[in-house]
């Protein structure tokens, strides 16, 4: 007969499934930093350089998508009451293909050329397709119907569109399309990835996570109801409109960007009214992320008009400044909490079956707050250095690379420390 504890944990995926994704992600950040160290100013000077594209994909696919897959596997049972079906198979299939696909793609952009790009795109597509199907099935079976659920579903559709556009681009780079078309496709691919997949997923998660864990007032019902579908519909219209009237690109994105800016400003305002006043690293990361997203919107028209360093600033504010800050903040909570959660399950089973309380480490014992603070400082330094890079690209690009290696290396090592603490506590149960 199944025990109570088994039933409770049944909803939570096996620990290794989210951890596989979450533990892998920081090392792609290390690789991105190492790449900047090696190539120096190249990605700063021209966004179409192979090194710039490799750098972007190491961060978006390697750090971001890998972590978001892991976090989704974990958060879905809590947020919608249904686990991702066949999660072991999905994790065992998606992870190696996504990792190998991202590495192949990055190498293809750097030196490998078309065969590596095709292999990378194929690996990424083949890896993420079953993940998206499993997520879709879980969302369709959800026991609840709320706005976060809809936002997450639309985020998954956006990821699928991003992947298809990416595959079309790889075909284009193989010599099948004109350069103008490639520029437009790349813009669409980037918009669907950042505004659709990342933006919608973060919005759906924020509506749940910010009021609950940071104890803020709720987001207004109108925002929760209309922002995600509105943003998604606008992205859908950009596809045919920008294809038919390329002159409208990229200005057609403005309403979607304003929607995201509104979301960021609202989050900052809600956080000012939070009940929980205890210093919190995740809150600091969220505030930095939201502030960077707002700054990115201010920079966006300048990037669209003048290109050059404005594009570098836009990318820096959007990706490492905005989205990756939010992600870092969440990972620093999710990884130690999950470890503790599984340990407590063992602790209670042990108490029930054999008697005698075995002590387990809490979140701060698994991942000390001082370690998290050092990671935050390195992340901030890397961000500041990246923003200053256009002033002295040759030197500062390499400094930024070194700081990225340090920040993500520390994050990766912090997770290894959590794992060792978890294993050592597990050992007490025999």
């Amino acid at each position, binding site marked *: 007969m199944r025990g109570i504890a088994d039933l409770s944990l049944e909803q939570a995926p096996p620990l290794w499934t989210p951890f596989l994704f979450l533990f892998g992600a920081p090392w792609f950040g290390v690789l991105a930093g190492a790449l900047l160290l090696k190539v120096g100013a190249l990605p700063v000077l021209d966004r179409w350089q192979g090194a710039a594209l490799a750098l972007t994909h190491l961060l978006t696919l390697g750090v971001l998508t890998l972590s978001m897959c892991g976090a989704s596997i974990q958060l879905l049972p809590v947020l919608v009451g249904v686990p991702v079906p066949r999660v072991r198979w999905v994790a065992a299939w998606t992870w190696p293909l996504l990792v190998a696909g991202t590495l192949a793609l990055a190498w293809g952009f750097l030196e490998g050329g078309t065969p590596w790009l095709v292999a990378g795109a194929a690996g990424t597509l083949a890896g993420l397709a079953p993940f998206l199907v499993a997520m879709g099935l879980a969302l369709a079976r959800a026991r609840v119907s709320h706005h976060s659920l809809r936002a997450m579903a639309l985020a998954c559709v956006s990821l699928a569109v991003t992947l298809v556009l990416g595959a079309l681009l790889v075909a284009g780079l193989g010599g099948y399309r004109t350069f103008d078309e490639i520029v437009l496709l790349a813009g669409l691919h980037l918009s669907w990835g950042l505004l659709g997949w990342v933006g919608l997923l973060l919005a759906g998660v924020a509506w749940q996570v910010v009021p609950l864990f940071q104890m803020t007032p709720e987001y207004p019902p109108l925002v929760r109801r209309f922002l995600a579908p509105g943003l998604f519909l606008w992205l859908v219209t950009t596809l045919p409109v920008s294809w038919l009237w390329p002159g409208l690109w990229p200005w057609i994105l403005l309403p979607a960007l304003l929607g995201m800016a509104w979301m960021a400003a609202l989050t900052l305002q809600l956080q000012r009214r939070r009940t929980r006043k205890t210093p919190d690293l995740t809150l600091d990361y969220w505030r930095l992320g939201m502030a960077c997203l707002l700054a990115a919107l201010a920079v966006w028209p300048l990037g669209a008009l003048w290109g050059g360093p404005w594009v570098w600033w836009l990318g820096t504010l959007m990706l490492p400044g905005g989205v990756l800050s939010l992600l870092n903040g969440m990972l620093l909570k999710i990884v130690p909490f999950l470890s503790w959660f599984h340990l407590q399950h063992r602790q209670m089973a042990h108490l029930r079956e054999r008697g005698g309380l075995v002590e387990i480490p809490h*979140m701060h014992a698994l991942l000390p707050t001082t370690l998290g603070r050092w990671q935050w400082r390195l992340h901030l330094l890397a961000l500041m250095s990246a923003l200053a890079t256009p002033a002295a690209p040759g030197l500062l690009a390499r400094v930024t690379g070194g700081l990225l290696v340090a920040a993500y290396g520390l994050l990766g090592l912090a997770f290894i420390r959590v794992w060792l603490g978890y294993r050592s506590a597990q050992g007490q149960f025999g």
Partner: protein
Amino acid sequence: MPSITQHLSGEHRACDHTFAAAEARAAEGDLVASRDLFEEFFEAMERHFRREESVLFPEFEARTGQTQGPTLIMRHEHEQMRRVFQDLATAFDAGDAGQILGLAETLLILMQQHNTKEEQMLYPMSDQALADRLDTLLEAMQRP
């Protein structure tokens, strides 16, 4: 007359406020004030758990026939939180501020994860399944 969702979610928010104040005092180093507030929080949580375990869950189980479903999971999660309450009390006895703050943050995530499941799944399901008995139930749950 409010719904079960409104009434019990309101209790969650009230407990959240006491928790936040207790944790803030601990972060400032005032462990005496923090302990008083945490004890107030433990009592409020225990009262809330009792209302669910002795009034809502049995009614829900009787009406839906689901005794091995969501209520079983919620009861187990209550036990998990009670375990952390005890750990926190021990940390206060030892006067260990670091241990208190670490356990408090761990409890916060556990508690809010649990509240999400109740507020978005179990309470709305109960409002639906027990629509004809809402008045009686809410009255029973408002008794001290």
